[in-house]
């Protein structure tokens, strides 16, 4: 599923926080967004999910403009932050709720919950009476990510998914995302501050700075070094 941003602009008062004249993310790509705080990464993701309104331009998923259609919600899984969790539910209830919304059969929901148990390291699911709100930060993060991947999405949008995850879960998440991408051609957008994760996971990396795309590169074995060198330079500037 191709994602496209055209003449996309977001201002807060007179300050432009994001300006992307054109950006195309082809279907089946793992796309990484990098940038320092305030670079516009989350703003871009929020615009892509129609959570805020663009001052100019638009984002499309496939043929649908996200701000004009609800169609994209059926094939998009997303997790931006913990406000995305319906934290008054138990994890299983949350997954069943999502499963029902996305027309996933009960048996399949159960299979999926069983499969994501490894991601949870045997915790989270099956803890009787424990609500999402009472889980640790890391486990909440896992719940949110699992919720995004749970719904057989064609597009996955994750904002800093590796934050708060333990090392094993970080590795597992990368494997999960790569597996989804290879098996089902899922388009994946991930923002992160971690150069290692992005260079290891993504096929393409874009660096945002003060709302502008300053670097757009296909990932290869030298990507990590290039990224490090870019951010070293930005410090010396």
């Amino acid at each position: 599923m191709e994602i496209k941003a055209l003449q996309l602009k977001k201002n807060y008062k007179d300050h432009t926080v994001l300006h992307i004249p054109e950006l195309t993310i082809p279907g089946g790509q793992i796309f990484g967004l990098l940038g320092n705080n305030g670079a516009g990464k989350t703003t871009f993701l929020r615009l892509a999910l129609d959570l805020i309104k663009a001052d100019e331009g638009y984002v499309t998923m496939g043929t649908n403009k996200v701000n004009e259609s609800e169609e994209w919600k059926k094939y998009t899984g997303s997790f931006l932050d913990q406000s995305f969790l319906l934290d008054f539910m138990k994890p299983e209830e949350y997954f069943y709720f999502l499963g029902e919304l996305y027309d996933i059969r009960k048996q399949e929901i159960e299979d999926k919950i069983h499969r994501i148990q490894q991601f949870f390291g045997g915790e989270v699911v099956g803890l009787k009476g424990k609500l999402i709100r009472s889980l640790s930060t890391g486990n909440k993060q896992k719940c949110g990510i699992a919720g995004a991947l749970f719904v057989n999405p064609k597009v996955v949008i994750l904002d800093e998914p590796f934050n708060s995850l333990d090392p094993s879960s970080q590795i597992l998440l990368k494997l999960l995302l790569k597996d989804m991408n290879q098996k089902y051609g899922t388009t994946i957008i991930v923002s992160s501050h971690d150069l290692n994760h992005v260079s290891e996971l993504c096929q393409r990396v874009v660096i945002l700075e003060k709302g502008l795309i300053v670097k757009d590169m296909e990932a290869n074995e030298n990507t990590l070094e290039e990224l490090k060198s870019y951010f070293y330079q930005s410090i010396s500037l």
Partner: protein
Amino acid sequence: MKYTWTYLRFELFLIWNNPFLRMQFIACALFSPFFFIMPDTTANGNQFPASFTILPIFCLANGIYYYPFSKLSTIMDRLSTIPFNFVQHFRLNYILFLLIIAIVIVAVYVVKQPNIESIALMACMAVVLVLINFIFSYLGSRRLELHSAWKMQFNGFNPVFLFVGIGVVMSIYMLSIFGLKYVMGNVWFTYALIGITCIIVIVHWFLIPSIMEEYKAQKHKKLELYREQ
């Protein structure tokens, strides 16, 4: 309606975890005996006293209907990115609200067998509460445009604000009811109450989509204000 039961179940959970609504549950339990104790008729023969004792139950039903709206602002992001139909959901909530009211009125009828005028008054009181709460919620969602001294009070579900607000509006409402009764006489007054009830029920049903739009717009606005700060 596929997800409705799951979501409603958690709304009940939310409601029970809200101290104000829990307090209302307790208040209802305490007030209910008065319904049986109070005389059915006053000296001049009308049956208002019995109807008034039902008011706390109506307040509770109304709180149950509206509380999830207040919670929405914190879960709006999530529900906005999944195929969750807000309008369908809140229309269903509204039907449930009307159902609770209908059950209460039938129960009153069975126990007290009041006249048609009292029944009409009770139904009208219940749906007027919905409108009052809608107005408060609307003001609450617009609070940032109000004077800063009032800002904190206008959060739509502040208990003090609700008590005082509902008290004032209900007083105006009751005065106009008595005024209407005096001017119109019993028969036309009853017709008027039934008419008003039907109009409010229907108008509210069609208001729900715009309420949702307002909440979504307000969510965007809050986020942008937060960003600007």
